């Protein structure tokens, strides 16, 4: 597959988060907004994008991948990203994304994937990309997909 690199730090900081923050301000969401924390929403999103109930998936919890996303991309320090999570979480007037069961969460995310709104699709692709970036960069995830990883063993890039 040709290079298809999306969803990294600058992408998200300048992209979906900004767009979502704009809707948030334009739609007046705020009254009656779900009380879930941004971190709850991120954990729930990650838990929908990756099937943690699959026995082949490494024994990782959604929060571990969410931690890694935050570590790699620094998203939870971004007010615009937090605003976009809040908007996403407001699934309906009576329910939050976090409050949905697994099947409902899946359906809700699929709606965003196919939404007519450019910004919703963009949020979906951004979150999907950062999740896969965080997960598939972990060697623990490679055996299940029969990927043997680097041929050379060098320590990580100096920080």
């Amino acid at each position, binding site marked *: 597959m*040709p290079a298809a690199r*999306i969803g990294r730090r600058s992408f998200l900081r300048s992209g979906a988060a900004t767009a979502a923050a704009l809707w948030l301000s334009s739609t007046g969401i705020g009254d009656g907004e779900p009380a879930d924390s941004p971190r709850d929403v991120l954990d729930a999103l990650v838990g929908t994008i990756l099937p943690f109930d699959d026995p082949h998936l490494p024994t990782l919890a959604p929060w571990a991948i969410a931690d890694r996303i935050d570590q790699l991309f620094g998203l939870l320090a971004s007010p615009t990203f937090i605003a976009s999570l809040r908007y996403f979480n407001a699934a309906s007037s009576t329910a939050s994304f976090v409050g949905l069961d697994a099947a409902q969460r899946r359906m809700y995310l699929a709606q965003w994937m196919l939404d007519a709104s450019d910004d919703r699709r963009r949020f979906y692709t951004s979150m999907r990309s950062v999740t896969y970036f965080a997960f598939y960069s972990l060697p623990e995830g490679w055996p299940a997909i029969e990927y043997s990883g680097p041929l050379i063993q060098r320590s990580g890039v100096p920080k």
Partner: protein
Amino acid sequence: MTDVACDVLVVGSGAAGATLAATLVERSGLHVVLVEKGAYYGAEFFNQRELDMTVLLAERGGRATGDGAMPFAGGACVGGGTTVNYALSFDPVRSMWERWRRDYGVRGFSFDPSADDYGVEGLNLATCARDVKVRCNVHEPRDDEVNENNRLFHAGCSKLGITARKFQLNMRGCIGCGFCGQGCAYDAKRGTMVTYLQDAFAGGVQLIHHCSIDTLALEPGADRPRVVGASGTIAPTAPGSRPNTVAPGPITFKARLVVVAAGSIESPALLQRSQHPDPHDRIGRGLIAHPSLPIAALFDHPIHGERGITGSYYSDHFYDRYGFVLECLFDHPIDAAIAIPGFGAAHYGRMRNFSRTAGLGVMLVDTPNDENRVRWNRATGKADISYRVVAEDKPRLRVGAQKAVEIMFAAGAREVLLSSNEPILPGEEVARFTRATQADACNRLQFVPNQTLLSSAHCQATVKMSEDPSKGVVDSRGESHGVANLIVCDSSAFPTSCGANPMISIMSMARYQGKRIVGERGRYFAS
């Protein structure tokens, strides 16, 4: 503050800049300084991990259109794109250069190897392309170097009577590790970092990396401004980089000639932020992307397309009629996961078949459109990229997708996926094909942004070359119409698509311009 004086300042160390710098010092004795915004990572640094190696890429791999829909991959390190590409080497496409002569008044660049363009002995594009191919050891892979992914692509093409050809590759002593895109840890890929940059060093060129050029220094001239240098900033040397030749901090350059070779995103951005005159609103306009659609195919046996030489075969069977090329390529898990559509259990199920998945891409030679463009954004301090597939290109891209699906089924695939969530197949949440007869569903693709993934690794044509200032920013010598002593020499100077993966075309053009500048040195260095 560091002050540097030189005869020629070359901005950008990629396919163009390094080749040009080396050529300039071959016989001239010119004092050439080559600057690169990125770090100088060498083979000892490349560790074959996708995450770590994003430091080689523009915006750490996040460079994309403003709507986030289309990634624009590019190298942001010494060697530029030649450090992170797949070594795919295509000769300059003669028909494109002929079109540029006709439509843009481009002169020179003779394909006759006996031509002496501009009266410079031996100056012609044919000789320059040959030089480049020899220096970079461009050759076809042997049959025993073709991996299973490429073998399947070839087999599928053969079954359908579709011509498939071997790529030419700039490699020497490749061990087939499959990590071309993350920097070659064995120096087997013959990018500019291990070829022309070394020649440049031998000729006395000074490389300054971690150097962002903030602006070109323009002074009033007799009939137009002239460039006398540039100013910029040296960033602290990144961990893992080879050492720099100057200390971090502000830097100014004085140069008799400035060559901008920063690529099709950064070159127009540099001209724009330097207030380069643009009376016809041409700078950054008409961006060519070579939009590419990834395709994945599931087989019943292990393929391990991530191992071996990544790309060995391509097909230009439909090129003359539809202007696309099918290129057999593969990638590592992060990029594969992003290219494979969907999410949740279905997506993970597909990823669990990673080792049994084959990959290829449809690469379109796209039609120029002024709305596709690059603009320097002073507020964000980066270039904004706008790109949409134009209406007349969509039918051609649909045919490409359809043919790719048919080829994979002919090769024995059980399932074929496009990188798309568009509802083109009833009952499918993503573009998932289970039999060849469904392939005509590709005709329903609309290439909706953030629903179908198209990526670009070949941006071009944002500082077009034309003898007509209303059509181009620079002339056939690469000289700016609006600023004296300024040359642009990289993929941005192509008037439209160069017609193929551009590395060798860019290097050949740079070799040509380097020879020409030396041959016409009185034009630039008279006093």
